């Protein structure tokens, strides 16, 4: 079976632009979370977020496209530039063996909200004609394919917070099946707009620790009170192993397995016993042909809500049995905020770099153990550990789950 390897990584996040800056923030425990600045937030319950700062779209996008695209598209194009530079891969135009597969939860809702205000004031005849291609969830993937003249498969997978794990898994399947030799894959999201943020706010899933933004987000901690929204994009250059070797590419890790599952309990709540999430992990491990003890680190979905962290803990126990307590587990969402449709790709980035750097990142702000969450969540500081394989979870509203397994490249 053909293998798929990661040869380039691009990241635009609240905690850094480019994977090196981001990784430094992760290792130093420097959170990108702060007060919301993109719109007035005084009347919201939650007033903090991981906003991307210092992003200069003119470095990455043609001037005309900057005016005609939303942040999620701009972030994705920026991250694609960074990933391709990192991989030293020059994409030959019009190749049909190259694809784009992104995850994105909700698309250009910021522009939709602006147009809604115009509609309310002036009526239907004043909605900008560019609205559809700007708002559509696949706008980012469409523009990436157009800019780099990519003629292979072009998909956008929208399954809320698991979107980009499904995108990476689908890219893996494309390479294994021979449909593509190179796939630009990952995720992008920016939902930092007043109405959409309010929708999450009234759903009461976000932290209320507004006075201490950098300490607010605390996955698996007993005092966790929800997630903090992030935004950004993470894009990988995923290549067929032989293709990467032929051009002498540097390889970070192999994407070795993809698992997916669905729960039948509730749309917004995972099965409390962790069954559906464990089925996702088991499926990914089987796909990677790895034994339980091969996994040296788990990047948890770790949203920091009471119910998710508990059910994920139970799922890990159900999957790994007696090994569960020996496996270091962390969530780096307190560094970047929860990047929603890009969260899976962010987890895969961490799980990839953990192998590449032989370092397991810690869970920032984890201080008070929860008796119900009794695994090793890597408190305090990162650990230097050589890793053979890692696993990264992404679970989503809609009760769907996706897991990616990364492995040190084997010839």
């Amino acid at each position, binding site marked *: 079976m053909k293998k798929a390897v990661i040869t380039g990584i691009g990241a635009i996040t609240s905690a850094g632009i480019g994977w090196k800056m981001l990784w430094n923030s992760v290792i130093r425990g420097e959170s990108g979370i702060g007060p919301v600045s993109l719109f007035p937030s005084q009347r919201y319950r939650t007033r903090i977020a991981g906003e991307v700062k210092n992003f200069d779209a003119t470095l990455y996008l043609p001037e005309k496209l900057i005016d005609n695209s939303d942040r999620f598209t701009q972030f994705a194009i920026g991250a694609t530039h960074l990933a391709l530079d990192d991989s030293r891969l020059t994409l030959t135009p019009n190749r049909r063996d190259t694809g784009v597969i992104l995850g994105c939860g909700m698309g250009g809702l910021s522009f939709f909200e602006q147009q809604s205000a115009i509609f309310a004031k002036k009526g239907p005849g*004043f909605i900008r004609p560019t609205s559809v291609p700007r708002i559509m969830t696949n706008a980012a993937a469409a523009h990436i394919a157009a800019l780099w003249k990519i003629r292979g498969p072009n998909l956008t997978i929208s399954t809320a917070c698991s979107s980009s794990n499904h995108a990476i898994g689908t890219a893996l399947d494309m390479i294994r099946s021979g449909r593509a030799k190179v796939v630009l894959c990952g995720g992008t999201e920016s939902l930092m707009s007043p109405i959409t943020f309010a929708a999450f706010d009234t759903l009461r899933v976000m932290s209320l620790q507004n006075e201490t933004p950098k300490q607010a987000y605390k996955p698996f901690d007993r005092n966790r009170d929800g997630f903090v929204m992030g935004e950004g994009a993470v894009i990988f250059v995923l290549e067929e192993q032989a293709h990467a070797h032929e051009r002498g590419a540097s390889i970070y890790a192999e994407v070795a397995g993809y698992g997916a599952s669905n729960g039948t309990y509730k749309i917004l709540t995972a099965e409390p016993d962790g069954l559906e999430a464990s089925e996702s992990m088991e499926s990914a491990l089987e796909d990677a042909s790895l034994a339980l003890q091969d996994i040296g680190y788990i990047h948890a979905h770790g949203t920091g809500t009471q119910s998710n962290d508990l059910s994920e803990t139970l799922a890990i126990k159900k999957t790994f049995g007696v090994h569960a307590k020996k496996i270091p587990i962390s969530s780096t969402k307190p560094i970047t905020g929860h990047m929603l449709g890009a969260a899976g790709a962010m987890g895969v980035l961490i799980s990839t770099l953990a192998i590449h750097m032989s370092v397991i990142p810690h869970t920032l702000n984890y201080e008070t153990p929860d008796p119900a969450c009794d695994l090793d969540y890597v408190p305090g500081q990162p650990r230097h550990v050589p890793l053979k394989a890692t696993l990264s979870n992404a679970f989503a509203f809609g009760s769907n789950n996706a897991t990616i397994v990364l492995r040190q490249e084997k010839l």
Partner: protein
Amino acid sequence: MKKSNEKNKTSKKADVILVIQKIVAHQLKKKPDQIMLQSRLKEDLGAESLDALEIIMSIEEAFDIQISEVEARKAIFIQDIVNFVETELKKGELLG
């Protein structure tokens, strides 16, 4: 685009040309003096179909007129747009 510019409702020929130049230039990321009366919207200025729709809508807003699909399709040169806008503005004046 700044709405204050678009709202310059005027029938003076020079002003009409100026407003249209600004709208087209803004949409196509060009300088207003690159937008000549004899320029063709698509062939010379590189407007795509979506650009044309945005330009039509901005002109409708700026002059408070309506441009039908049939009229829009006839607009090849910038001069065609100017002529159409002037005709519409005159109609408006006659109607008081």
